[in-house]
């Protein structure tokens, strides 16, 4: 299995949360298809050079969130049915967290709502207009 996951232990985010986010991202982007097998806990721990219990914890949480399913003796698999939608929803939370941080930062820098809205529009235009044109052409 190619290395589709990476973690950055020195970032403040706990490693198990990074693993969870990476798996969700891989599912949303199609790097992991529904029904596809994930690396075993041991294999992923060795590959990422992180503690196996940390990976096991991430897998347990992913199971609880119905992103993956584990059958004893066979391994962990991306859940079939509704998976991408669930993972997307989960990623929404990640994006919202980033946006909330940005809003808080803006407010603390003294920006008022219209000023921030203008900035958000600017950022959106930068990333979405080109994609939009591509879709149309």
């Amino acid at each position, binding site marked *: 299995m190619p290395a589709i996951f990476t973690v950055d232990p*020195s970032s*403040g985010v706990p490693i198990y949360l990074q693993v969870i986010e990476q798996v969700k991202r891989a599912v949303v982007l199609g790097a992991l298809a529904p029904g596809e097998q994930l690396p075993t806990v*041991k294999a992923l721990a060795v590959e990422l*050079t*992180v*503690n196996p219990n940390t990976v096991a914890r991430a897998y347990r949480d992913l199971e609880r969130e119905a992103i993956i399913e584990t059958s004893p003796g066979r391994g962990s698999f991306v859940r079939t049915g509704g998976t991408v939608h669930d993972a997307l929803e989960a990623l929404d939370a990640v994006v919202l967290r980033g946006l909330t941080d940005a809003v808080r930062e803006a407010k603390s820098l003294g920006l008022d709502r219209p000023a921030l809205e203008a900035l958000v529009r600017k950022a959106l235009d930068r990333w979405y207009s080109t994609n939009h044109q591509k879709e149309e052409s």
Partner: protein
Amino acid sequence: MNPAIAIDHLTKRYGDVAAVDDVTLAVPRGSVCGLLGPNGSGKTTTFKCLLGFARPNGGSIAIDGKPLEPQTFERLVYVPERPALYESMSVAQHLELQRRSYKHYDAARAAELIARFGLDQRKRVERLSKGQHTALALVLAFSIRPELFVLDEPASGLDPIFQRVVLDLIIEAAAGGATVLFSSHQIGQVERAADRVAILLRGRLVLDDDVDDLRAGEKVVEAIFEHAIPSLDGLGSDVRIRRTERSGRMLRVYVHAESAAVAARIEQLGAKSVTTRDVGLEEIFMNVVAADRPTNLGVE
């Protein structure tokens, strides 16, 4: 289930000095525990008591629920910071000695580890560098496939590439179900390899936690005030706060739980801006050490 290692109210005094002062620490089976602490904080003494090389003044040690006995060392391996090897013997002779001494010796694993560390089997120990010395001790330890590893600064003297090999070895051992207790000055290693972290300061255990839980709870709340920082009014006794720092109109509060509630409290003090960010293990460690210093100027 009994923990693999149970240290219970351990005290070891040298003269008037308590090198280890009432330390209680349990390492569950299958766990990797990273022991951090400045030099002289009692890490090595704890290991010596744990292995029966020093007689504690108080407290007890249990391995898999039982006191130390000769058979313990069939499944436990200890690598001291300065491993004792035979100067005039070659690397190959050390491997041979290991093969004869341990029934679980794995020759294939030993050969693989020798290759990973790039050791020359014909070389005598006296001709090895400090790093190679450490590497050989680790090869010997990991080739007998023990259930329990106690490693005192296993990566000291190694270059970054071989430090990574040590990290890989610890993780592979854990993936195979072994339990590891290791001390380190390299917080990054503990962050990756360990699921539990313990911090010793002046002989006392000041922190013992699950790494992920710890990192999920620890935050730093930074606040900027328009004018001078007001009286912090009871914030000093807030149990969620590790310590505070102030410089000019900037207040920095290190929190170990419920950072949102603490941030809200600081906002009520009239802060112009309040931001919360995550902290890594290194910063957590530094905070714990700083909070312990008698010179620390906390909140009033």
